[in-house]
Each structure stands twice: as C-alpha cells, then as structure tokens.
C-alpha cells in the first residue's frame, strides 16, 4: 500500500497512515487530504503545522485541549474549540488531522 507522489511511492498502513514519518511532504498532505474529502485551507494548514511542531518536540500528537488552545491563539478565540476543529476535520481532529500531517494514529480509548 503506497501513495504515489511525483513518481515516488510512499508507503502507508491499512488505514492510510504513513509507515515512515520522514517521507512526509506538503504535496503528499494535499493528496491524503483529498482522499479524505478535505480541501486544505490556510486554517487546515495551521492545524497540520502545529501538529507537526508538537510531534517534533514530544513524539506524540497533542491532546485535543492542547490543540484547541493553540488554534485559539493562532486563529482567534472563537475558533479555539472542538466544534471548530470538527468543522475542519469532520472525522475528528486527532485522527484525520494526524493522518494528513503524516503522524501516527492516536491509539487507545480515543
């Protein structure tokens, strides 16, 4: 199972999460988003970029509350809530946004 980007193959698991996180690039993110029926806007990118920065530091995706707070700071307090994140990523900010950001899927009772 692999995504095809500019002639190169990037492997993913059964659910579309990358097997090698270092292979991520922005074009690939656009492509994964499309398979999820998401058109990447500036707001989507803000979320994806924050997820990647956080992951770089902590080796895990941020908790939803950490994410909503960061989004509120960047995009305005009216957008710093779970509901807004679900508007951006209807399948759930944690899982869908992580997939687009090239991060592993959050596991457990979430």
């Amino acid at each position, binding site marked *: 199972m692999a995504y095809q980007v500019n002639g190169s193959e990037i492997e993913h698991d*059964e*659910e579309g999460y990358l097997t090698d996180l270092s292979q991520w690039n922005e074009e690939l993110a656009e492509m994964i988003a499309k398979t999820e*029926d998401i058109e990447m806007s500036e707001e989507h990118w803000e979320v994806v970029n924050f997820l990647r920065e956080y992951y770089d530091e902590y*080796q895990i995706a941020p*908790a939803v*509350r950490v994410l909503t707070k960061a989004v509120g700071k960047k995009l305005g307090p009216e957008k710093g809530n779970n509901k807004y994140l679900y508007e951006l990523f209807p399948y759930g900010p944690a*899982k869908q946004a992580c997939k687009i950001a090239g991060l592993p899927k959050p596991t*457990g*009772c979430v």
Partner: protein
Amino acid sequence: MARGPALTPPPLSDRPEIEPPPLAPGAMAHSKPYVAQPAHNEALGYPGERVDDWQAKAIQALGELVDSSRALKVYLDSCVKCGSCADKCHYFLGTGDPNNMPVARQDLVRRVYRRHFTPAGKLAPGLVGAADLTEGLLEEWYSYFHQCSQCRRCSVFCPYGIDTAEISMAAREVMDRIGLGQKYCNEILGKVHKVGNNLGLPEPALADTLEGLEEDIEEETGQAVKLPLDVAGADVLLITPSADFFAEPHVDGLIGYAKVFHQLGLSWTLSSHASEAANFAMFIGSRDQMAKVAQRIHQAARDLGVKRLVFGECGHAWRVAYSFLTKLAGPWDFLDPRWPVPQHILEVTNAAIETGGIRLDPEGNAGKVVTFHDSCNVARASRMGEGPGGQFTLPRAVIQASVPRFVDMADGTIHDRTFCCGGGGGLLTDDLMELRMKGALPRVNALNHVVETQGVTHMAAICAICKTQFAKVLPLYGLDMEMVQSVHGLVSQAIRLGAAPD
C-alpha cells in the same frame, strides 16, 4: 485511503426497547478488524504470524484453557439451547446476524471443544454438533469474536449463568497463541509495556498537557488547582485512562477529579510509569499480559510511597482493579489499611458530598437534563461503596447532586440490564465502525426515547470507551456528540471551590 460508503444506522423505534430484528444470516460475516502485524504480536510474546501447524496448536491452547478454568469448561458443557440469550445482545439487535446471538457465538467454540474434548464428539461428531477447526471456522472465530464486546448482558438472562465474555476471551487467546492477533488491542498493549499507556504518551508530553490544564483551571476559576505528576510521598495515587489526558469529554472528568482532591485538601499524584488505568489484556483473555499491565501500578505505588489507590472513570479498569488487582499485582500491604484497595473516584466524591467535604451547586449545570449510561463492566462485574448495587446508586447520587434534573432511561436498559455502548471489549477501532454503529442501536434508542419524552439533554458516562464511542456514533443517529459528558465533568461544573462562606 478513501473512506468507505456512508454509514446508515438502523432505524430507531418509538418504544424504549428495540424489537428483535428479522434474521439476516451472514449479514456481518464481512466484519473483521485489522490483523496484528508480526511486531505487535511478538511484543506480547505471541508468534508474529500464523504458525504452520495452527490447527494442532489451537486445539492444544483450547485444551490448556479449559484445563485451567473450571468456569470455561462449565460454560462450554452446560448450554441447553433454551434461547433466553438469543435476543439479548446489542450486536444481534443491531445487525440481525444469527451468529451474534450469544448461543451461536458460544457454539463457534463449543463445536471444537466437543470434537476434541468430549467422548461423544470424538466418536460421533455429527450427532452432537461437534466440528473440526477448519480454515472457514477460524475465519468465523476472527469475525464473530470481534463482534462481542464481552459486556456480559447475555449472562444476566442465562439460567445457567453462562458467560459469553469468558468464551470470547478464550477464543481470542487461542487466536493470539497461533499468531492471529487483533491489531488494535495488541498494538496498544505493546505501547503500555513500552511507554506506560495506551496512547504512547511519553512523560514530557504528559507533564506539558497537565501544566496546560492547570493554567486553564486557574484562568477559569481563579483557584490554583494542581494536577501533580510523579510526586513522591503523596497520599493518593490516581490511576486513570490515558484518554482522560487526551480526549473530549474525558478531560473534563480529569479536571473534576482534580477539583475534588483540591477541595478536600488531599495530597495526590498521577504517575508517568502507570499512566493508564485500562487493561486491554482482559479483552484478549491473557492473564499473563493482565498481570504485566497491573504490575506497573504496583511498581508506581511502591516507588512513589503512596498510601491510597484511586481509579478514575474507566469501565473495564474498574473490573480488573475491583475483582483481580490483588491476585494480579499484590500484596498491597504497604498501603494505609484504613482505605479499601482500590477505591473508585466516585466513592471518594460521593463520600465527600455526604460528609460535606465538598459542596455542589447544580446551577453550575443550569439547563441540563441528564441521564446516566451504566457501563457494562462496572454494572455487571463490580461494585462500589459498602452495599450491593452501589455501582448503580453512587454514580446517580453524584450526578443528582451536580445537575438540576436527572432522568433514568427505561428499566430494561439500565443497571445490570444496561446495554453496551457498542465499542467495548477491544472493538473501539475505526475498522469496526459499521459494527460499532449498529451495536449502539439499543442504547441510542433508549437515550433517544428519554430525549423525546423527558427532554433529556445530556448523557453522562464513567468509562473512556463509552465516552469516545458515543461521541463518534451519536451523530450518525442525528444526536449531538456534545451530549456525552463525564460524570466528573458535571462535578467539575458544579463544585464550589475555595473556602465555604459562613
């Protein structure tokens, strides 16, 4: 990965309880979770992939399990096909697939047991419903033992008390031993062994998350409510599901526990070594794995030198803790004997309400009409407080003290007859979304009934799986995901912090 076809839920009924559906043989035969990769299995000591002599190994494993569990043997021997269980499983009610009748699910194992471990089955298998474990039957095992949430509702109605959950756990253990593990559970257990929790949340991220929450609480309430981590010498060690750190509405519950401890002036701590209450090893039926997960808690309690052990809102964690903790990870003689080992956070909060240690003002939840979803493992496999039925009365007492109005769902759907959320027992995974949606039908139907007839606005739960499952499936039935609340999220809104006015 393109998403599958849109999910259409089965229709709700005008009545609080769902009528048994028409039979739809094989309707859910396609439902199978992703198989674990070799690395997931090997991390738990199982073969990475299906072993060559899998049939012989499976029979051997089943024999060992039957020999080591008198209960399992009795369950496999004693069914008289009376039919009492047939329409009691939420997955049957939601799918109509006859293999989701508990008796039929049990028979998937019973046939093989009879063939190899009973004289009649060895001599005349055709006469006694005995069968070999063929490739086709193994496929049915993988499918239908991942359509049982081990909720034990069927066992309440069985005149012999046959517990399908035990059979389902055994079947999964047999499959693990031949290298056919389920990805969701096995990957998660590997993370617990490596990092300490289901999420794989490392200590620095946990510390950062807790600090952020402390800031939020102080900003909102003006009170310096703490969420301490790894504090040696604290009195109370709180063990809670890692979803409480990560997800909504779980985190509101965590904030609620912290406010209760704060108001009681208790010294408490979380542990980064045991940052998980859940014990998925129960779902896969492995006692060794269960002990290994539980021993992290023992280690953390010893290392931190705590005196009490309190569990947060997690259904099966409470079953494991309440019923098996001493066996799995004792002795606990270093804890303060004045407290039960373990305690549930609801026992702490309920006692604090009764003694006036905390004061709750329902105005904090103004406008809410709340019902309560009894989680299966709490309802049917544990207790709380002093007397029988405390697991039903304590959560309700705490909710009633926190909200302006409380309404129960229909009798046949609460207490020990509660319906599973549809995502328990290791099935809370995206690859089983159709099953999760259909299995939620009886509970959603009962909820919808009190929404329409009693004006219920919210449903509170005390299990991380239930909360996540409902947040995901309620919207499929046209209900708002934000209806789902943590019981301690309600407490958090109602509790009065600071000194009491005279």
